[in-house]
């Protein structure tokens, strides 16, 4: 059955039509919720709240977008509502994550070496795949929500910056800054963890 017809039936009270609409998107919504929240408990709450909200608002859905897009937006709002209630940390300004200027160390090899960034090449050689995955997922989950949301939408959900900006209700410039700070912060934490492991494995 066509989506339009399913929506029409759902709006007139046909629960089976609604279930069919939901079923086509529930895996995607759960995946999004898991990435945004970083844990199963919150992801389940987001999914549940999303579908309940979809029932509340089904009669307001005017087919201006695909049903999946509409549901996706509800899920983003529910995730944000959940994390808005919790205290979130802040990330530092972009400059905090940048290496010291090369002109500072030029001509002084020992200073240069001390200021050098750790160049991680193959973290896969330092970690078992599962441990690496768990570490990365934990670091993403530890980002303050507003940064995590922007990062996840941009790089994991792979939305263009413009769409991320629309989804989170910020200007493109503010969105880019948020995405970059998240990326820099993650990079720095990964570098610390990889360097530490590298030194312990190959002192």
């Amino acid at each position, binding site marked *: 059955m066509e989506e339009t017809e399913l929506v029409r039936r759902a709006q007139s009270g046909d629960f089976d039509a609604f279930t069919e609409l939901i079923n086509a998107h529930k*895996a995607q919504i759960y995946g999004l919720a898991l990435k945004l929240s970083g844990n199963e408990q919150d992801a389940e709450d987001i999914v549940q709240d999303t579908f309940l909200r979809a029932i509340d608002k089904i009669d307001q859905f005017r087919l201006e977008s695909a049903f999946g897009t509409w549901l996706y937006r509800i899920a983003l709002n529910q995730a944000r509502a959940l994390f808005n209630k919790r205290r979130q940390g802040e990330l530092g300004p972009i400059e905090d994550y*940048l290496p010291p*200027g090369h*002109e500072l160390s030029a001509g002084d090899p020992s200073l240069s070496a001390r200021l050098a960034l750790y160049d991680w090449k193959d973290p896969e050689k330092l970690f078992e795949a599962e441990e690496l995955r768990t570490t990365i997922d934990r670091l993403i989950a530890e980002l303050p929500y507003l940064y995590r949301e922007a990062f996840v939408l941009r*790089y994991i959900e792979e939305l263009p910056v413009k769409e991320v900006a629309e989804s989170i209700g910020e200007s493109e410039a503010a969105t880019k800054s948020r995405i970059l700070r998240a*990326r820099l912060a993650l990079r720095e934490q990964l570098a610390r963890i990889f360097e530490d492991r590298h030194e312990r494995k190959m002192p």
Partner: protein
Amino acid sequence: MSGKCPEYVNELNDYLDGGLDTETCAQIEKHLGACENCRILIDTLRKTVSLCRGGKKEALPPALETRLNDLLKAHWERKFGRRPS
């Protein structure tokens, strides 16, 4: 000067994700050729995203499916005043 690299911080996002004009790209690349820390920064920023992307898709937990089904039915009934079959 803040004493920090890179000088091209405002263009960093666009450089990493594509979307910069070739002239600015060439300037940045010239800098990367001369500044080891910036080369490492760019490399590892790229790897950060590729590592984050590698997650696997998780299916809905069966317990959630069951709970959802009951919950949504009850909510539907409250809204439409009739019990779904």
